[in-house]
């Protein structure tokens, strides 16, 4: 049914940790984003998160803020982001998570979003500033169109809310590694592992860890205790650094492959399999 569920089932079977890169639609331009989706899939992405640019990204650090600004300067909208997915999906089969702040979705309309996202080949929707308490109508509409509503959990999330979130979420749960905004970090905190343990107690959904995951070493560490790692700012920073390079797409692909170089070592590590 859910392609995201299939993906995680496949990872579990092979004992591999999942790799979920994030890029912003329209950064540095739409045509490049489309090529990046294809390249990241080829580089080994298990799922890709595509960010919808927003004028006031309060949950993001400077790197993704600037990516949003670049995309907005190009006039990129939610509609463009969906078109980008539709085009790329003619060539790739990797599940795509639409990642957005709430207001652009609200203006687009709930039914229209569910219909057009489904049509474009989007598999799931994650809304940064839509917590389960406010999300009910949206969750229902998305699920009617077989789109997985993905929710965030944070180290500050209470056990009681973890249960509620686990009940509303589908596909996987996105665990925020630490209190803070997005951004590459030198070191991972222990908060993430503790949080993933707490999620496992109340939900059977796979767990992906993001925020600050930026090196091959970080990925390896996350795979020890979680099902997948999301890499956002580190990739977006590469895109920014290379934004005028003619071979941007290949070099970002190369960077993604370098992050994955160690994934084989992960095979057979039983802690990557979540227990029933």
């Amino acid at each position: 049914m859910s392609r995201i569920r299939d993906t995680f089932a496949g990872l579990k079977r092979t004992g591999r940790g999942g790799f979920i890169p994030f890029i912003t639609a329209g950064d540095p331009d739409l045509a490049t984003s489309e090529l990046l989706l294809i390249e990241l899939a080829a580089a080994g992405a298990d799922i890709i998160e595509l960010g919808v640019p927003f004028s006031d990204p309060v949950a993001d650090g400077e790197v993704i803020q600037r990516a949003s600004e670049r995309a907005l300067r190009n006039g990129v909208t939610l509609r463009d982001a969906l078109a980008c997915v539709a085009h790329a999906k003619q060539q790739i089969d990797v599940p795509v998570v639409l990642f957005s702040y709430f207001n652009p979705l609200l203006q687009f309309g709930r039914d229209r979003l569910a219909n057009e996202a489904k049509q474009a080949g989007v598999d799931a929707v994650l809304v940064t500033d839509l917590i389960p308490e406010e999300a009910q109508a949206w969750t229902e509409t998305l699920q009617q169109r077989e789109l997985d509503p993905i929710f965030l959990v944070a180290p500050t999330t209470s056990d009681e809310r973890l249960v509620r979130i686990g009940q509303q979420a589908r596909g996987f749960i996105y665990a925020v590694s630490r209190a803070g905004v997005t951004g590459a970090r030198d070191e991972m905190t222990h908060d993430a592992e503790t949080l993933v343990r707490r999620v496992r107690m109340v939900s059977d959904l796979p767990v992906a860890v993001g925020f600050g995951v930026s090196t091959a070493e970080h990925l390896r560490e996350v795979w020890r205790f979680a099902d997948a790692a999301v890499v956002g700012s580190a990739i977006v920073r590469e895109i920014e650094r290379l934004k005028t390079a003619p071979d941007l797409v290949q070099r970002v692909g190369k960077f993604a492959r370098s992050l994955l170089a160690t994934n084989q070592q992960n095979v057979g590590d039983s802690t990557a399999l979540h227990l029933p």
Partner: protein
Amino acid sequence: MQRSTITTSEPDENGHWGQFGGRYVPETLVAPLDELTKEFTRARHDAEFWRELDQRLRGYCGRPTPLFHGQRLTAHAGGAQIYLKREDLSHTGSHKINNAMGQALLSRRMGKRRIIAETGAGQHGVATATVCAMFGLQCIIYMGAEDMRRQALNVFRMRLLGAEVAAVNAGARTLKDAINEALRDWVTNVHDTYYLLGSALGPHPYPLMVREFQRVIGREAREQILSATGRLPRALIACVGGGSNSIGLFHPFIGDQSVRLIGVEAGGRADSLGEHAARFHPTAASGGGRIGVLHGTMSYVLQNDTGQIATTHSISAGLDYAAIGPEHAFLHDNGRAEYICASDAEALEGFTLCAELEGIIPALESSHAIIPAVRIARELPQSDAIIVNLSGRGDKDAQLVAELNIR
């Protein structure tokens, strides 16, 4: 519009006034917002909390502020008696201290010693820096670089009071950008930081809590007008940025159906999107009248067709913001309150008029309410009275107005 018959305006337990309000925040902030809601609810029902707040507002902030009969302004209008609620006389020069004091007491109950806040005009920043100095708390104020330029006096005051003023260079470098940065700080430092938000907006419980701390304006005004005139006023008029001084004045009168509640938004320099801050603006090209989500709450928000938040313009930094507090959205839709706008030019005219006729230099924010008040008074008999909220004093704006070569 048909006059509403609502007699109360209370949100549900999750901070919704109808479809407005609520909490639209990153997950990390839910826990501190829950903690804050719990502590505020406890304090709200604790007589001792209010006793201490009242004592500090009296002894330190100079409350109650007078309700002043502006006789020359009244004569100028030639109609209803115009009364001015003198928030400009409270300590630090605006109503903002009412809320800053209340929240500082809360932060103390919660044991949080690092205080952050956003500011537009700098009045909330000064009020926050002041209570932090008084309680010995660390204070960081986020302020857009453009606002730092046009409200330079307040930047200096905040620094004198020992606050760190952090310049925000994103976007249009005004209030919206300062709130973004304050939220990012909070999400990063949730464990030891209290976010002292300055207007009746943001995620639950802020709109409710800030209103409760500003209600003192309306409670006093109601008593004062009754003792001065023996009856209720015909109208209350207040400028609306996020909406704290206006809701503070309006709320105790909600059940008084004969009292019109009139909010004045910033009409800016033109009617097109980007040139004003009138969220209820009635014309199509203005971008007004659209519901959206900004900074954690659902309300009317100035934005483009694809949901990107618009930049705004007002001569007054304190009204220069794309969203309005959710309770105002509710009162607008059910017709209990009315919203109009005053342009930059009208604000300047009101600024001068109030100075010349009453010897009171109002803040540019408050100045937005003067000309509409004169107009409304003119249509009413002399036996009636109206109240204008003079939310702040204009010292901070004197330089800017001088540069505009008004005099």
